[in-house]
């Protein structure tokens, strides 16, 4: 039966179908009616479908926990996608929610048919068994779900642990590499060393500078507290006549610095090295007080 115009009854059915608030039987009938081809009902449904979506947009947003993102990534790695152009792919909307345990299911127990030849007591026993099985299945499902949630939390924690271990490993590899550099520099003949010490009134700044006179470059390593906002550490060579800038010292967020700097041509006779705190684009002359000072041996 095709409709030629939208009546109030059709509008109501279409509106309630779009809201998902028809009973399963009513919804199935309306679906079949549309599948048989009734453009009037189809159009009414499409109109209401968009309006229903509007209700969802009125909710307030809520902050999501980070672990879901990690679990989603893990699931995407694990679970294959449905291929295109399959029966599932041709479907327009997600399947309606299963209503296995809807209140209607429990509110209207199925009565045995009269004249079926089976005793009502037998039917009640069967009903009771099914009800017990349903409760048991629900309980089991809840147990599995809880266990699953715990496993997900553990998996998330394990992922975080693996991440930490990878960071530690990477940091240790970095330290090993740094030590190799230092040892190689120290082994060279003609190497000069300056031990950096913090100056009065500034935080402690332990470190050292190894000068490879053959390659005309220096290796600076040490710990400098993170520079204040808008400030940066600057390295200077102190010669008998001048203080020659060797550029800014970049340290990591924890304060560790490990850099190689070329020795400026006019600083080959430097007797000491200085670290100062300057504006973050550097200075032409060092600003007092000095942050750290070291004299070459």
């Amino acid at each position: 039966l095709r409709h030629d115009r939208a009546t109030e009854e059709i509008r109501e059915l279409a509106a309630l179908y779009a809201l998902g608030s028809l009973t399963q039987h009513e919804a199935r009938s309306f679906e079949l009616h549309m599948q048989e081809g009734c453009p009037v009902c189809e159009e009414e449904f499409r109109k209401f479908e968009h309006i229903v979506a509007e209700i969802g947009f009125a909710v307030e947003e809520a902050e999501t926990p980070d672990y879901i993102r990690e679990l989603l990534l893990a699931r995407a790695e694990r679970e294959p996608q449905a291929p295109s152009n399959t029966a599932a792919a041709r479907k327009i909307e997600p399947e309606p929610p299963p209503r296995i345990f809807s209140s209607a299911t429990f509110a209207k127990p199925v009565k045995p048919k009269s004249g079926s030849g089976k005793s009502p007591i037998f039917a009640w026993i069967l009903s009771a068994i099914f009800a017990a099985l349903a409760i048991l299945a629900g309980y089991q499902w809840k147990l599995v779900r809880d266990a699953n949630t715990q496993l997900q939390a553990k998996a998330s924690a394990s992922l975080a642990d693996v991440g930490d271990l990878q960071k530690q490993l990477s940091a240790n590899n970095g330290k090993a590499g740094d030590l190799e550099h230092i040892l190689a520099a120290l082994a060279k003949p003609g190497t000069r060393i300056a031990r950096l010490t913090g100056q009065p009134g500034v935080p402690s700044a332990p470190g050292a500078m190894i000068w490879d006179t053959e390659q005309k470059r220096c290796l600076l390593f040490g710990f400098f507290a993170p520079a204040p906002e808008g400030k940066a550490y600057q390295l200077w060579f102190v010669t008998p006549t001048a203080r020659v800038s060797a550029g800014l010292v970049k340290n990591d967020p924890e304060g560790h610095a490990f850099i190689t700097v070329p020795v400026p041509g006019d600083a080959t006779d430097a007797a000491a090295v200085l670290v100062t705190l300057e504006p973050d684009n550097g200075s032409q002359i060092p600003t007092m007080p000095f942050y750290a000072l070291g004299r070459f041996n």
Partner: protein
Amino acid sequence: LEQGTKAEGALPIGNEEALALIRKIENGEKPSLIILYDRTSRLLFGLVLRILGDRALAEETLLDVYTYIWKQSASYNPRIPALEWLMAIARARAVAMLHWTKPDKARLERRAGMQDLAMTVAPEQQILSRASIEALIPTQREILEWVYFSGLSCSEIAAQVGKPLGVIKTHSRLGLIKLSEQKP
């Protein structure tokens, strides 16, 4: 693929951007799935949390929603705006979860505990929707919200609230018609 960072400060996402991401997800691009999650999950989580009223269940459902999007992105039909498709999935999965678990105690207080966060998904659409719903007469709004967020049939709701079935159906229909009249 960057892990552990969110697209904070990104511009609110609209339908076209969401559509482009869904197309990429359909081609198996996992980074696009994560971008879509970063950009849309707060609204979808708000919806799921509102329906379920239980944070743990809502988190579980949110993961389920995006897993569904990952697996079934090929089923997306551009006849429906992309964000509406996402919302439809979120609502369907949350209502399904609701029927399975029935966390009834928290549902009455589902508004409590919601945070007033900045809008990250189609803010104009959110503002218009809120205004349209606020403009409904209180009974219509109450019944329409009940129908939408509970996923129950009108007859189930009529039984729960102790009102005639006809009243529930009429208010639902009239409420939707009123909302459609307010749409620009």
